[in-house]
């Protein structure tokens, strides 16, 4: 039986050799936090890490993952939601429907590993995931907050003005 190292555990699975990693994670290993959105590496909902690098698992055959390569999914980003990005996500109320957010978080986590203090241009280049609800500005702000490059308020590209009538 083929094996994968996922979130620090070695797991066996049963699937045809061309089965994408996404479907092995979801259907064989019950790791459903990684989402199917397009199947053609366009939307990024299926983003996981292989040895820390972000990949779109919907187009990578599970059998192409090399022995010794370590896969991290959203379930393994932190044991208890304590990753700086997860905390910033909660603090800024980032998700709307939430379906794309696992992929967003994994793409963002890989970015911060690569560039701990990302610029806006870095964020634009690294976060190419599709969100239909429209969380981009909060995603950007939360990445900056997690990176410590901005405070909570200064990090927002969103300015809130509430006016109350007399």
């Amino acid at each position, binding site marked *: 039986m083929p094996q994968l190292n996922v979130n620090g555990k070695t797991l066996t699975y049963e*699937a*045809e050799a061309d*089965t*994408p990693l996404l*479907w092995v994670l*979801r*259907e*064989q290993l*019950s*790791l*459903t*936090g*990684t*989402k*199917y*959105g*397009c*199947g*053609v590496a*366009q*939307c990024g*909902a299926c983003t996981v890490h292989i040895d820390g690098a972000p990949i779109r698992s919907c187009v990578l055959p599970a059998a192409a993952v090399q022995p010794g390569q370590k896969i991290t999914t*959203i*379930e393994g980003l*932190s044991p208890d*939601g304590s990753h700086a990005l997860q905390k910033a*996500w*909660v603090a800024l*109320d*980032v*998700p*709307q*429907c*939430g*379906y*794309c*957010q696992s992929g967003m978080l994994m793409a963002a986590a890989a970015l911060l590993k690569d560039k701990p203090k990302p610029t806006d241009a870095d*964020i634009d280049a690294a*976060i*190419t*995931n*599709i*969100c*239909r*609800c*429209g*969380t*981009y*500005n*909060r*995603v*950007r702000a939360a990445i900056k907050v997690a990176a410590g490059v901005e405070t909570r308020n200064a990090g927002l*590209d*969103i*300015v*809130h*003005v*509430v*006016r109350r*009538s007399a």
Partner: protein
Amino acid sequence: MNANTRIEAGEVSAATATATAPSLTRREFIGSAAAAGSLVVGFSVPGTAAAQGSGGEINAWVVVQPDEKVIIRIARSEMGQGTLTGLAQLVAEELECDWARVTTEYPTPGQNLARNRVWGNFSTGGSRGIRESQDYVRKGGAAARMMLVAAAADGWKVPASECSAAAGVITHTPSGRRTTYGQVTAAAARMPVPTEVALKNPKDWKVTGKRLARLDTAEKTNGSIVYGADLKLPGLLNAAIKDCPVFGGKVKSFDAAAIASRPGVKKAVRVGDSAVAVVADTWWRAKTALDALPIEWDLGPNAGVQQAQIVATLKGGLDAEQAAVGNANGDAKAVIAKSARKVEAVYAYPFQNHATMEPMNATARWTAERCEVWTPTQNGEAALAATAAASGLPAAKCDVYKLPLGGGFGRRGAVHDWVTQSVLIAKEFPGTPVKLLWSREEDMQHGRYHPITQCKLVAGLDDKGEVTGLHMRISGQSIVAGIFPQNIRDGRDPVVFQGLNNGGGEAMIGYSFPHLLIDHAMRNPHVPPGFWRGVNLNQNAIYLECFVDEIAHATQQDPLALRRKLMANHPKHLAVLNAVAERAGWGKPAPDVGGQKVFRGLAQTHGFGSYVAACAEVSVNRAGELKIHRIVAATDCGHAVNPQQIEAQIEGSFVYGLGAMLFQECTVKDGAIAEKNFDTYPSLLMRHMPKVESIVMPSGGFWGGVGEPTIAVAAPAVMNAIFAATGKRIRELPIKQQSLRA
């Protein structure tokens, strides 16, 4: 969502037990789930013996448990728009409970049916979730508070009028005695139901109107939330489906034997007249087997239809004699005919797919006695009706368990085609749950599309350049004719005129013209239309707001000054417009960005009961590349239940509206939709997203929606800014293939 409404992947045997074992009390049920070592707790708690009394139900909306936990029942669906949190705030406000102890759960549509629709309408569309139910959910909270207080007073043998409640604690003011909601919950459930319930004055709100965090965020950051696509049940089979690519076509035949020996494949199933599904142990095996399945289609009467024909048909409607009138005063045609000068333009808006990130899906389990469906839906009752119809069982023997939606945008509301399919497939496997999941390609080709329309606008001007009359002729598709044809009267679809109505409070035009005619020549192509987030307000605001800009340019007036003149009788429309103009700095040049000059454009409208406006700042470089730098947006939604969530909806509206404006178009080739995935139907990305500054300015006295209206001002504000930058007027959407330089 609390643990009681959550389903964890992998282990739901206990959860399913609740659906079939109503004698389990809530406590026993939770106990059994915990004993099984699972995080799983069930779907259908309301309607069980527990929820009808012993589990702490005070009334349909409020459950108070002895440990002080408060469960607020939510009938509408959460799909990202924040309604779950907002509705809970409204109930909690009147309940006077401790917000920190509030969780929520969905009653099922089957329970609603069994209890004479005690939870009212489940439909979650038209930005109506809060505004349509705010009155009765607040009364539910208030009535529960009165019963809890009455129970405490009864125990103390004092008049209830001497007692008050705050943060879940009841105090007898004269004696200072105190008790808690949890301590009196059982007695409260037996108290008489109050007949007269007074609601708080909004100025006394403590929970409503606050920027409270959503109740459903943490589970969306760690992979633990279970969407419909993630559901697992014991023995679950998986189905992939292909419907005839041409709308109106049918299945002629398929060769099931060709895939029978593939691994995991159980069966190829004809689904209705037009679709074939493959059922297998895993979805990937079902999907790949379906791809390998030889299917012969009868493509039907629409197989030869091309996009150009549809466009030509709509063009014919622009000057047609027959048209249904939406709004009129005076005699616009006559006045325009004899005007000194005319301004004229034709605009066009395409078919678009909702493209929810989570494709359509439903899990169904059918037996001859009962049919259950688990699905993300914007309307549980409509999903139940679809389930009953497909199952051949009465609705009382069916139920639907709502799961979190990975996007809705109108696709998961009015039509439940995927639910029908899932039940038809499950009937082939009695007693076994089968999960149907559409591929993205299926989703793109079998949507319920944003209606395609064109619009011809003609304004008459007098010799001073003042507008004497406006004729706005819309030609094209009617959503209502496609989905609720019984609501078409004398060829008139009232929803077509969204944002253009004279009064009514729902979607009103913000201008007064001396003579006005707005009419619609209905032209319905074979492509099925649907309610697409923002609905008809989207294109109507583009048509009118861009054309008002055209009039301003033609008469050498400032676009804001012209609007102010035409909007003198529409103070609330004008207030949001003035707010964005002021904050953006209209009238003063915008600072350059990266050496590029920055230009502004305005738009305003009223829809879904709210007044909205936007001012966009853009630059266009020599190569014709557009950069949208900043948008200032204002919303007057009457009462603002949670400003933070309203702002999130405003921000999100620009993603949806700008993506539609820039990139998104579904086109018809040989009767089918040509765009099959995000590579040919791109979405707005991070790098396209402008800064958004939102102004939430509730003026009180009414309840407006917030999930949709701002979408309508996104495109016209940017299109008007593009004109200011380039002098080139964009009149066809999407922009993608058009040069922005003349």
